[in-house]
């Protein structure tokens, strides 16, 4: 097996172990609930027999290790149990709500990389001068408020005072697109409906910007810090002495080596968007997994809580694995060390 492949596979293996650990952690958290979960779920009007029956159906009368065993067996078969809130299989609920969240997170991640990194490069190139100071202060401002504050501010400015963007939702009512992937931008293209595509894009911009704003600042700060460290290296000085144009030095000699340390952290920040989507979806009435998550948490719906958190943890790990693989692919040191070793 090529060494690169082996490294990637071992990374995936470790991630699966971590996910298994996380599943146990979430399971334990969900079962230490004070009071009888079956009673909480059924409400105060249920009879003792009903509570007893539900308790048995959920194996709540057995020791916690056995409960976990049952749950793991179901999980392997792709069954996360039934939500007591929607009264449907949790997997079905998640399949319905997850695409909306992923679409939002994906656009936000794109904005984060496409705007944050260039701003960081710009700041590093003009370090100590006004573009640098401006970008530093602005990026520090954006990371200093939670996503819901930006959501409120952006909504007020660009949906109410200047009605450029729609206030809430994913799509205007006049459009109906057959659901294929659940990503409205993709589904509308699959249906060949360009007007609906434009409308979906129009709806996603404001929530995605609100979600990504802190990430843009974070990516800019990080890229700048790592690039400035690279700028101190002698080979940059040499390139400058040779009289290479600043733009080429910035792009080729300073940016590339500093990309690798930035990438790991930016991966973590992208993954964190999954959590922050909770805050933005609430403001914009975005029908995603986060809204579902808050509802089931408020209703102490055990299966749904465990299932939702597990799926988010899995997404989180997938993003991190992708970033790790990218790091390996981009880093000549790792590539060549592998060949030699």
């Amino acid at each position: 097996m090529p060494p690169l492949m082996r490294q990637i596979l071992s990374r995936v293996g470790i991630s699966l172990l971590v996910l298994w650990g996380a599943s146990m952690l979430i399971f334990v958290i969900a079962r230490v609930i004070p009071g009888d979960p079956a009673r909480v779920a059924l409400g105060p009007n249920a009879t003792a027999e009903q509570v007893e029956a539900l308790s048995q159906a959920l194996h709540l009368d057995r020791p916690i290790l056995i409960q976990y065993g049952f749950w793991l067996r179901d999980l392997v078969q792709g069954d996360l149990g039934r939500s007591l809130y929607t009264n449907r299989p949790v997997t079905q609920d998640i399949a319905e709500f997850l695409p909306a969240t992923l679409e939002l997170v994906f656009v936000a991640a794109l904005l984060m990389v496409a705007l944050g990194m260039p701003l960081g490069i710009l700041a590093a190139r003009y370090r100590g001068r006004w573009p640098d100071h401006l970008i530093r202060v602005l990026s520090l401002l954006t990371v200093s408020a939670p996503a819901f504050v930006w959501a409120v501010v952006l909504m007020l400015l660009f949906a109410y005072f200047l009605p450029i963007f729609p206030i809430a939702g994913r799509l205007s009512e006049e459009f109906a697109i057959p659901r294929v992937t659940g990503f409205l931008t993709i589904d509308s293209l699959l249906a060949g409906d360009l007007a609906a595509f434009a409308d979906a894009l129009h709806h996603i911009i404001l929530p995605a910007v609100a979600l990504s704003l802190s990430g843009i600042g974070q990516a800019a700060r990080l890229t700048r810090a790592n690039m400035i460290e690279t700028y101190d290296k002698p080979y940059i000085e040499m390139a400058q002495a040779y009289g290479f144009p600043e733009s080429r030095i910035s792009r080729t000699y300073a940016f590339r080596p500093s990309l690798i340390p930035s990438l790991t952290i930016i991966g973590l920040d992208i993954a964190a968007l999954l959590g922050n989507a909770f805050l933005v979806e609430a403001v914009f009435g975005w029908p995603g997994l986060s809204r579902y998550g808050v509802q089931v948490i408020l209703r102490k719906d055990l299966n749904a809580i465990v299932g939702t958190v597990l799926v988010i943890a899995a997404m989180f790990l997938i993003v991190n694995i992708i970033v790790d693989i990218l790091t390996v692919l981009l880093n000549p040191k790792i590539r060549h060390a592998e060949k030699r070793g």
Partner: protein
Amino acid sequence: MLILVANPLTLVGVVLVATVVLAALLADLIAPFPDHRGAVVDFVNFNKPPSVAYIMGTDVVGRDLFSRILYAYRISLLMAVVVLAIAVPIGVALGLVAGYLGGRWEYGLMRLTDIFLAIPPLVLALSILGVMKPTLLNGMIAVTAMWWPWYTRLVYNITRGEKAEGYVLAAEVTGASRFHIMFREILPNCIPALVTKMTLDAGFVILIASSLSFLGLGVQAPTPDLGSMVAEGARYLPDQWWLSVFPGLAILVAVFGFNLVGDGMRDILGGDR
């Protein structure tokens, strides 16, 4: 003091943090309507836009928003202090043990840290709060549970570097105990990075706590909390914009202040990103 002159932004940060801390401590003296932090109703003056009497306007039951924000700062700062006071010692001790003792300790503790870090912070806190009653104390527990692994990781990385240094070897040769080496020899070298991180984190704890309270899992009404005030106010957009904008700005001012100070400290002391 030299530091403050060298970097005016740090000075701005110090002023912001000092203002927020003083506002919280002296809320009883500054607040024009101290009793408005509770369940007071004044239907004559409800939904008033910002004016001279109510500089940030009044809410849907006529309470002065400015007074409520001052009291809300108390909750935010208390949260930051308590969470860091518990999470930092736990995280640091585990990081020292994992980094210095190595072997089984390192493997077990760092995998445990990985597991906690595998769940997005906000989601972990949410799921903990999900099964408990949303009170201030439980909020603190939930945020603490998601915070310690970062300190374990930071101290672990420093400790692994310091372990090979001459002074540690010297202490080992003289027969110093492991406890002494970890807490008396290595720990002091972690302090600069820790101080920087704690300053930045004071802001981020406030930010996360406000997020939990925004989702309805924080301090319950009528106690004022910045996050729940924004959530409540967002329902009255755009007409009563001040209800959500001012508490939102209050969060921004506090967190921005801590970030500026933390940034300045990093320039002087060094530390992680």
